[in-house]
């Protein structure tokens, strides 16, 4: 049975990975608009880098599960969004072997960065805990 879009035209059953990626870029964009801009403002306008020592991070910034959760969420979105974006850029300008190489490196780095970020967010003890 044909699905109908709101425009009244029958639409295909699926668009595959590209559709998902396209949609996700947009959804994560909206999410990031809030998350990343808030994050940047908090870091730069409500406080100042000169005070943001490691200690400050754990005692002030990350002393609630909520703030940590938020930043982790941002990490997830930023990485997926950024990597999908970089994938597009790479595929636009590189062909064949080079493309495969760069994409592989990107994915590896992505996994590593995701791991690093997640480890910090979850392993650093909450001061109150």
């Amino acid at each position, binding site marked *: 049975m044909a699905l109908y879009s709101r425009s009244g035209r029958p639409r295909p059953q699926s668009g595959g990975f590209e559709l998902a990626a396209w949609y996700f870029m947009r959804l994560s964009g909206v999410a990031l608009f809030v998350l990343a801009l808030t994050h940047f403002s908090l870091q730069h306008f409500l406080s100042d880098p000169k005070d943001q020592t490691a200690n400050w991070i754990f005692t002030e910034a990350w002393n609630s599960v909520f703030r940590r959760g938020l930043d982790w969420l941002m990490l997830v979105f930023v990485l997926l969004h950024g990597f999908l974006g970089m994938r597009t850029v790479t595929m636009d300008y590189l062909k064949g072997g080079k493309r495969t190489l760069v994409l592989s490196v990107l994915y590896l780095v992505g996994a590593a960065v995701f791991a690093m970020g997640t*480890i910090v967010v979850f392993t650093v003890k909450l001061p109150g805990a």
Partner: protein
Amino acid sequence: MLFRYRGSEGMVAWAFHRISGIAIFAFVLLHVFDIFLAGASPNAYDDLLKFYASTLGRMMEVLIGAALFYHALNGIRILLMDFWPRLTVYHKQIWYANWVIFIGVGLPGAFIIMRPALGL
């Protein structure tokens, strides 16, 4: 071709979006790394922080903030058109509106970031 073709607003908007995306991406990698450092080696992190708080560091923060802000605003422009295609008629106007917001919010922002470096 990219450099020979005289595209107008739309092409410039795209080029900036792409460049800013790549720049933020690079920064994000760095940023996750430094936060990781904060957990793994707080002292090393605090050294790095000194650089962030220096004048040069602040200038880079302004740049990265500008990139993020531009990218965010233009991202919304793209989103608006994606979901309401008839807005494409006004794509140039939206772009200029973005610049107004960019300057209006960005200049004070940059000032706040730079203030300690300017000794104010």
